[in-house]
């Protein structure tokens, strides 16, 4: 081999060594350097959303992680929250059922511990980790009131009473009264199916139908009662009781008065 051909080859070898070294260095850096956290992936969306997720994570770690685990995996006290979705968070937290005060057969409705904004942040955090049922955009109390009433009586009234007054289930469980529930809580309950309640997915009741039901429930629980006292809207039992005690009792008193001598 001539020298003239040997020199360029040596030079080429040097380049290759440098390139391999650089590649190794880069690979090592990408392998060993601190990775960005998975939670920051939704940064592709709006920055508001990522801020909400971050704030929700802080709220979660502070208030919920004791029972539900630092990574939503669940624990001794609470179930895993991966995949429950924002609907579940809105229902449980906005109605005050979570955080749970003490273990009972069913989580009771309480004064909410978080503001609506904080509920949204928590919901964003849970939704960002595993997804799940969501709430639709726009007003939730919308649609055909009459259709909402039909669907309510068909799907909801068997447990929650025809006027949303609630009712008893088995072994101490109960279907709660619907009057204190906000539209978001009503919709998210249908969407997530909390505790004993069946879940009504979008394939069974469309978004429009669920909005109509929510509208109807808000309507009957907030409408005025021009007929006077509704006696809890429990139907014929309390009404009959009042008639027997007050009505017939009053008649007996009147009869005694008329029959008595002056």
């Amino acid at each position, binding site marked *: 081999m001539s020298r003239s051909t040997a020199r360029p080859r040596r030079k080429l070898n040097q380049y290759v060594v440098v390139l391999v070294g650089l590649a190794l260095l880069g690979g090592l850096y990408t392998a060993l350097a601190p990775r960005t956290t998975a939670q920051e992936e939704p940064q592709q969306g709006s920055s508001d959303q990522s801020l909400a997720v971050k704030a929700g994570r802080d709220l979660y770690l502070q208030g919920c992680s004791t029972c539900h685990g630092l990574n939503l995996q669940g624990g001794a006290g609470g179930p895993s929250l991966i995949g429950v979705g924002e609907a579940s968070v809105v229902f449980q937290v906005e109605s005050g059922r979570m955080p749970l005060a003490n273990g009972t057969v069913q989580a009771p409705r309480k004064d909410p511990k978080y503001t609506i904004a904080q509920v949204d942040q928590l919901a964003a955090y849970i939704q960002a980790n595993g997804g799940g049922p969501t709430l639709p955009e726009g007003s939730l109390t919308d649609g055909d009131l009459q259709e909402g009433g*039909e669907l309510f009586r*068909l*799907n909801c009234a*068997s*447990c929650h009473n025809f006027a949303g007054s609630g*009712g*008893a*289930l*088995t*072994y101490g*469980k109960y*279907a709660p009264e619907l009057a204190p529930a906000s539209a978001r809580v009503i919709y998210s309950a249908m969407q997530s*199916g909390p*505790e*004993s*309640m*069946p*879940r*009504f*997915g979008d*394939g*069974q009741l469309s978004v429009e139908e669920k909005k109509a039901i929510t509208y109807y429930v808000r309507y009957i629980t907030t*409408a*005025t*009662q*021009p*007929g*006077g006292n509704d006696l809890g809207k429990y139907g014929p039992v309390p009404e009959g009781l009042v008639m027997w005690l007050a009505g017939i009792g009053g008649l007996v008193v009147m009869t005694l*008065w*008329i029959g*008595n*001598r*002056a």
Partner: protein
Amino acid sequence: MSTPDDPTANATPTTSTGGQQPTSTPHGGQTAAEASPSIRERLRNPGVQSSGGDTRGSDLTAGDFRQTDSRSELHAHGRDERQLSQSTPPVEQPIDRQVDAFELGRQARAERVVAALFLLSLLGTIGFVLVYFLWDFAFDDPDHVLYTPLLGITMALALTGIGAGAVVWAKNLMDDEETTQERYPFGSSPEDRAATGTALKAGLAETQLPRRKLLRNTLLLSGGALAVLPVPFLFGLGPYQNKEAKLATTGWQPGVRLIRKNGSPVNRDDLTLGAVESVFPDVPRGTKLADSAALLIRMRPEDLTVREGREDWSLDGYVCYSAICTHLGCPVKLYEQQTHNLLCPCHQSTFSADNAAEVIFGPAARPLPQLAISVDDEGYFIARGDFSEPVGPSYWERTS
């Protein structure tokens, strides 16, 4: 007091004691009708004091106790016979309300109360009319919540004002003498009875029935045959075989789709885990058939205990039961998705939806009938046949 033309007086003609002057003669057989004067009599002779009260079954005489007014008479009714016979006769105390100053004041007060109650009724009527015509009522306006209750209250004032006034009036101002109204003798007078009998006999003679034997016999024959006419109605109540078929079958048939109340078929992808759907058979008037209502439930397939012989009745955790309680026929639609309990709201019968709807609590004696389901080519649920057994409460002709 008996009068000569009183029929009861004819029965015991010698016991006409009258109420004017009670005698001291023992008088055991006296009847109530004779002892106390009739209301008409009293009205006619207001000064006459009544004699003793009902002495039936007692050996008291009317003169044993002389009463001045019906109040003491009523008082005497309250005692038993022994006490009556031992008690001394009450002293005669005529009450003349007109001279009693206290009584006069009381009556004046009562009069004012009555007038006030009548005026209250007037106020109620005016209020009702004013509320009805002047209040521009709008349903569902929070400002108008009092509209209907106000109508009710004013109407109640208008009615009870007059009623209560009348009662106070009657109790405080009117004479409160107890009177007895005699019952009129039953039956028509002998003259009427005789006249009716004559007319009937004349009518019979007019028909010539006693003479015309042919008419009489054919009439008896056709009338007797008429008695057979209701017999076919008895057959209309049976036969039991049809009844059994009617009670034991529903609208579900093999291949019939499961539809919702609005008529849309249920796809196998429609329900999420833990969902329930009220379903009806896709036959004419299917959603109106009272015995065919069913509940389609979706649970995790591993949660479902499949009975032997029912392996192909459910599908991927989808299971369908009759929604009619086997106790008294209430709708069983209270489903708890965590415990898979199906609860009847009427008497708390609880069925285990994950275990062939076995009864786990309550008065129901039999599990809910299960509907075998499958899916058709388009993925919609279809029934594989009718229910496994008759739906609803037990009945006598039940075979299962």
